[in-house]
């Protein structure tokens, strides 16, 4: 009987990758909810020292902290998802050229993005579905080039039951050969060289459950 991870568990597995002092960029959507998971942990374990990390937001903030209170929310203090945030001690603000330079220059340890497809060469598609509404790539194409560790978090299956981990992306790419780790509700995978190395599977998940051609899979867990 398999028990896929829920969203909080998927995000917790990503948080577990973080080392104290690391820098992290959180993509719009599911990745940004890492803020809320960290907030929640802090409320549940108020005596525990918070994880000492620096969260970057590509609109020009380093040191994003949890959500503000209704009183402290500021129109000029937002993340790249345009949501109100707060900052931690040691935060800094800067312009967009420096912000993306920080990313492109390899200074960010982890970049967490949502995904539509990741292929066995580590290419990512997450910004457009032909024929559907166009939203624009925003910073996604930049974020995948430069961070030391690019992590994609997404549900394992499309609504029609296909795995989003593919031999080759079918949707237009966001970036080529750029993804280091994929976290889905079914497990944690490392793409590259035409294979997905399996780092961990959710409880009870078997290879057959993944709906990925078996020759693309390498067990390492």
């Amino acid at each position, binding site marked *: 009987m398999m028990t896929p991870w829920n969203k*909080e568990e998927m995000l917790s597995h990503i948080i577990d990758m973080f080392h104290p002092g690391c820098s992290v960029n959180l993509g719009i959507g599911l990745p940004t*909810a890492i803020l809320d998971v960290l907030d929640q942990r802090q409320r549940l374990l108020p005596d525990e020292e918070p994880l000492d990390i620096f969260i970057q937001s590509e609109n020009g903030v380093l040191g994003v902290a949890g959500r503000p209170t209704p009183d402290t929310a500021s129109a000029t203090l937002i993340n790249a998802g345009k949501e109100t945030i707060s900052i931690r001690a040691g935060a800094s603000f800067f312009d967009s050229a420096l912000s993306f330079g920080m990313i492109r220059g390899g200074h960010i340890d982890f970049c967490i993005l949502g995904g539509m497809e990741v292929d066995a060469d580590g290419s990512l598609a997450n910004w457009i579905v032909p024929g559907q509404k166009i939203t624009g790539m925003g910073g996604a194409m930049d974020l995948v080039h430069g961070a030391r560790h690019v992590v994609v978090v997404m549900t394992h299956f499309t609504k029609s039951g296909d795995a989003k981990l593919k031999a080759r992306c079918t949707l237009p790419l966001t*970036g080529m050969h750029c993804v280091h780790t994929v976290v889905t509700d079914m497990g944690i995978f490392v793409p590259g060289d035409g294979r997905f190395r399996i780092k961990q599977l959710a409880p009870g998940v078997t290879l057959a459950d993944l709906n990925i051609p078996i020759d693309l899979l390498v067990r390492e867990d």
Partner: protein
Amino acid sequence: MQHATPRRAPSKVYSSATAALADLTSGIRLMSGGFGLCGIPENSIDALATMPIDNLTVISNNVGNSGRGLAKLLQRRQIRHAICTYVGGNPDLEQQILQGEITVELVPQGTFSERIRAAGLGIRAFYTPTGVGTVVAEGKEVRMFDKPCVLELPLEADVAIIKAQRGDTYGNVWFQEAARNFSPLMAMAARTTIVEVEELVPLGAIPAEDVHLPGIFVQRIYQGSHYRNEIEILKVQGITP
């Protein structure tokens, strides 16, 4: 020996948005600072929305959001072409794209920032890994460095409208929190930069080390009014994912 008569520089200070924008014409390339609704030049946009000019090429990260900001110019059909990074959450823009009333050129945000900086600072082209293997690289030169990179060109404008918390009479500017974003870069990249500030302060009131945008990049400045500073998405403590 002749001496020039020492004189004071012509003032950069304008009395209002209307005065500062009076000579803008149809068809110009217009940059507008801000990320979403954060740090947008509210007064200049409002003034533009009352002026009989159209056919604008707008360069801005978003072209307004949810009917606000630059969406006011969309609603009045003043924009013909937009260069931006993100068009989501903007029903006015979506509709005009579908109806062929506006053309949109999407640029990755880091490349967008760097192209604007390049225009402002005289870099004629640069190579970046962003966009290789994607639609962004189509028709562009790709060259191999440590990884394949695309050649990108500067992005300049005739006029930039930007907003800041504080500015002095020479145009030295200080931005609050994350409201800086593209604004200083756009000020560098436009031939005429019009800054609106919440507080117009005396020359030199901003400490020289902490000027975020030196006044040399600013041609006009005015103190705006009635700032709404709208919060686009309010998220507060205690909401779990």
